[in-house]
């Protein structure tokens, strides 16, 4: 099926000069029933291996603070950003499970749960915050949530000291046992967001056909499940649950909603070789997804946890993970700062795009909550407390941004998540190891 989209194959050499085509003709068009206020959107961007905290941590507190050196690219967006210091993901610590801090840091980052140490049987952690939100507001948009990344999952060997690679490859967990696979090819992300028809068949026939197909296979799955043992039944449950989600999407599409206009967007066919270009394309797609309200919940792994890729564009030729065990070697620390700065720079560029995109009566950034952070603070010693966390956007005017908030009691990161979920209209009373809401961010 070749999806008939208004997309041109990117010409060699165009490279990162690509701009995001923000067309006036492409004013936000919502799938959801008419709403007065623009909806709040939520995104989580993770980076691996922690940060050099000395260069990260802002000086001063409250409204009068100075960004640390590696956070400088955000200076220009200062009034839109809340820097949070002192939050922890305690479940990233070993708690008797020995080595494997990288796997634990990605697995715990958005779940606040302690992953079961296993390389295969009985993979289990907890539902992640984005999926809690998607469960409650996902029905309002074409895709309940979007999971994207840059690096494919490691496809051989072991990922981290006896933990299955599932823990390092995903930060989003649909439930305690189902990691949400992520899409790494920009073109395929675009197709998911905006592709509607295939093979010339109109969407309505296609949806009718899909519905009849899914009806039949659901029956088969139900029948099959009765013949299986417990472990096997769990796998068929995943099948069911995924079929059901697609059925729901079909039924939403049938509810006479305005189709999302297909934006013009240039993407290469495969995975871009240039990491910077790749990261930018993914961020641009996030802007598009929010702008068109194709989804309100996104997770983006700027790299897999424990990633050992070099950052040649900023002169770092050694591997990131290898460097992160710097043992205070000054040269390595300097290299790591360059990586931190680069990644924050790309994040700032993304925030800038959100800010320049009109949304409701203001701009998109005001209506977003984007967490940027890592499940490790000190990557050298594998610390999971005092995490580097930035919250960007004002959550529809409910967050008092432009501050550096120091949480001295070492509150769980999940407390922030509870507060974010409230703003999505999907509040829950607890999530993972949360102990309450992080009221200090409130406007």
């Amino acid at each position: 099926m070749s999806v008939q989209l208004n997309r041109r194959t990117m010409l060699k050499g165009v490279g990162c000069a690509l701009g995001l085509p923000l067309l006036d003709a492409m004013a936000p068009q919502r799938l959801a029933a008419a709403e007065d206020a623009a909806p709040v959107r939520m995104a989580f961007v993770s980076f691996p291996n922690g940060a050099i905290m000395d260069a990260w941590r802002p000086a001063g507190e409250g409204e009068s603070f100075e960004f640390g050196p590696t956070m400088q690219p955000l200076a220009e967006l200062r009034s839109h950003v809340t820097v949070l210091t002192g939050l922890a993901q305690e479940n990233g610590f070993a708690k008797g499970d020995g080595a494997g801090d990288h796997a634990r840091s990605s697995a715990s980052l958005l779940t606040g749960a302690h992953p079961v140490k296993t390389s295969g049987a009985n993979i289990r952690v907890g539902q992640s915050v984005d999926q809690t939100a998607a469960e409650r507001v996902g029905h309002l948009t074409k895709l309940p949530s979007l999971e994207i990344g840059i690096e494919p999952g490691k496809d051989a060997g072991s990922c981290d000291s006896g933990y299955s690679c599932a823990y390092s490859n995903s930060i989003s967990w649909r439930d305690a046992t189902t990691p949400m696979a992520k899409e790494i090819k920009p073109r395929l992300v675009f197709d998911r967001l905006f592709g509607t028809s295939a093979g010339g068949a109109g969407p309505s026939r296609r949806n009718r056909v899909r519905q009849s197909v899914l009806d039949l296979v659901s029956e088969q799955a139900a029948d099959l499940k009765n013949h299986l043992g417990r472990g096997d039944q769990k796998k068929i449950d995943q099948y069911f649950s995924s079929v059901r989600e697609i059925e729901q999407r079909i039924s939403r599409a049938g509810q006479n909603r305005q189709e999302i206009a297909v934006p013009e967007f240039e993407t290469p066919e495969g995975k871009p070789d240039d990491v910077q270009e790749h990261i930018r394309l993914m961020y641009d797609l996030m802007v598009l997804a929010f702008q068109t309200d194709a989804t309100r919940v996104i997770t983006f792994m700027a790299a897999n946890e424990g990633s050992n890729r070099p950052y040649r564009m900023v002169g770092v030729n050694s591997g990131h993970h290898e460097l992160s065990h710097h043992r205070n070697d000054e040269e390595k620390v300097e290299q790591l700062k360059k990586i931190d700065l680069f990644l924050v720079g790309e994040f700032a560029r993304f925030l800038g795009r959100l800010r320049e995109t009109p949304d409701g009566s203001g701009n998109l950034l005001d209506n977003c909550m984007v967490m940027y952070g890592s499940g490790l603070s000190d990557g050298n010693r594998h610390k999971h407390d005092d995490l580097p966390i930035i919250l960007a956007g004002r959550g529809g005017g409910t967050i008092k941004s432009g501050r550096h908030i120091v949480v001295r009691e070492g509150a769980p990161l999940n407390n922030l998540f509870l507060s974010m979920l409230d703003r999505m209209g999907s509040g829950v009373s607890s999530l993972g190891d949360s102990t309450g809401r992080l009221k200090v961010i409130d406007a």
Partner: protein
Amino acid sequence: MRKAKYLGQLVFGKLAGDHRRDEGVFVVLQIPMAVLFFGAIAICASAAPPPTGDKGDPDAIYRSQVVPFLKKHCLECHGADAQEGDVRFDQFGDAKAVAADEKTWQRTIQMLRSGAMPPEDVAQPSEQTRRSIVNWIERTIYNFDCDQAVEPGHVTIRRLNRAEYNNTIRDLLGIALRPADDFPSDDVGGGFDNIGDVLSLPPLLMEKYLAAAEQIAEHSIVADPSQYVRSQFKFRDQLHGDGSARYDYSQNNRKWTIYSTGSVGADFDFRRAGRYTLRIIAVGQPAGDESPRMEMRLDDQKVKVFDVNATQQRGRYEVKWDVPAGRHRVSGHFLNDFEDPTAEDRKRRDRNLIVDSIEIDGPHDPQPEDYPETHRRLILVRPEGGLSALAAAQTNLKPFIDRAFRRPATANEVSSYATLVDRAVEQGDSFEQGMQIAVTAILVSPHFLFRVEGGDVNRGDKAPTENSVRPVGDFELASRLSYFLWSSTPDDELLGLAAKNKLHEDAVLREQVRRMLADSKTQALVDNFFTQWLNLRLLDGVAPDPLVFPNFDAELKAAMRKETELFASAIVREDRSVLDFLGGRFSYLNERLAKHYGIEGVQGPEFQRVVFNDKRRVGVLTQASILTLTSNPGRTSPVKRGKWMLENILGSPPPDPPPDVPDLDAVQKAKPNATLRKQLEIHRENPVCASCHKVMDQLGFGLENFDATGRWRDKDGTFAIDASGELPGGAKFNGPLSLAKVLDKRRSEFVRCLTEKMLTFALGRELAVQDRCTVDKIVEQVEEKDFRFSAIVDAIITCDPFRKTSSEVSQP
């Protein structure tokens, strides 16, 4: 049910169910144990001792062998006076007490096996003693007995992974689509990406399955046969050039250019006489006053002359033509070469013709025999001459569902799919469109996407009501075989033998395995098993520092990977001894890689077999792929290379490092100005670190003559390379060849390691404690058969875990 993890050779994981009870016992035992000493009488005399087969009374062995061993080698650091790493061995009264503290003893096994303990500065046990102590601990804590019937284990129902999906579609329909290339990556567990417990099915994947099924259905069945026109394409390297036509091989710009006179053409099969569209896709480089002129010919006959005006984008130059049946060449000839070296516009100095591809469409009056083969196989009958759509669909679908579900379809299944077709036709779709829908639904069925082993549907097997062991059915066995050896669906012969209920017979099974190993589809073993076992797939993500290794590029990396793939492929194809992985003095090189290795006489991009007479290259260990993927970007890492050998060759992975390295912190605080080298020396002085690093580093040193991209070196900077090392137990080596010899002396560990990996891959589950017994038997059989590759495969496909399954109770 035992579902324990099997952590490499002799190192076993938790027994999830069985040891819950022990936690309680442990608490009870804690108190009296504190006052017990070695040789004390068992405190729980009434408790049944763990069975040890014919190995004697475990308590007696504990007293006579284990306790003296502990006293001699361990207690100095792990006894009453010191408890390094919080480990203390002087408080276990008897075998039962040992069994109760599985965690401590598991780690003990790992330490003993890898040679990490005892540390160098205390008396070293003989290998024999080491092994027998490890044996005793295993039998004691895991409580199994190979002399009794061993549970075959249960493989969690598993979906096809990406490779299996692509291959299955290829073999099921005979089409070359690879839809799974765009599926999300499959998570890896136990080193492989085909493990049922680990493979999950999130909504994204279901979405992809559905889209892929639609794509395949549309590709396989022509929705409107009256409008169908067959197309054939040939482009770039499928074309032939004559005269001054030259092919540019450079990666980003592959094309045929005709510089003066000459032609580019391709042969096509015109299956019958009829009217066809002949088309040449071309670009002109104009010069002077004219565009390039191209004469299209059919064989030697002039068809038409075109002015190739397209200069930026490719142009389509086509004509409808009556062509007789048979094989004919369609070609484009460049007629008006022109050169003006003085032209002002440099780009208009030389007139050339570039041919991109040649296509034919037709015949334009389609007959059923023109339809694609998939169409003809899926549409055996149409609803004509009184045949209803329902009946026609049933006839068409039955054989396809049989193949897709890898077992005979039930009447119920066939009729529910046929009903789908019938209903579509009622709603105005063509019969062919209806069939597309049915094919889509078959390809997203759980019976296609999952390898279901729920008993034999046709025998009317019911859900198991109690844990039980049964032989897998013949159809299940057919799938187990084909997904193991081909990563694909069983072929007609396997399914035919299963239908006759003959496949499980030993002679038939062996004969089939011989047949399967001779098939080119065993390339899948290289692509999926060997690339994962050797971690070759990780080479993709490796990025040597271009400042240090300016010669390294994508082409060299691809050549490295290819070498190892061809090497593994030779072992399979020639049924060589698997010991060649350690000691084979041959490999496959092309010019680029041979130059990298400093070997003369290999020319061109094709790979050729090379026999080594030097003192450098031997087996897979010295292949640039392995050496590169175990290095850091800027330098070698003896630690990583050693770890790779321990994990993938010797099967005794080093224990996890401590979760953090507090001692190093302490060092830094105490000596903030110490150099990194000094800190690391202190780090190694810490026996916890030193014990493991000693083994890893020493193994890695043996390969220090190879830099981080696998190139030979005699010096690192200004320092001469020291490639000597010594392993616990005293085996010494210096350089790659003697390291290979040392490893060859430990060939049984290697064969065991390879067996474990391949059994994991074959079964699609991590090995459990009781699989130890199976592995023992396989290793024995392989040794008897001169370590032939086929001996491992034979032994695996005839072992109980492969041919039987333990059923789980279902829950209502």
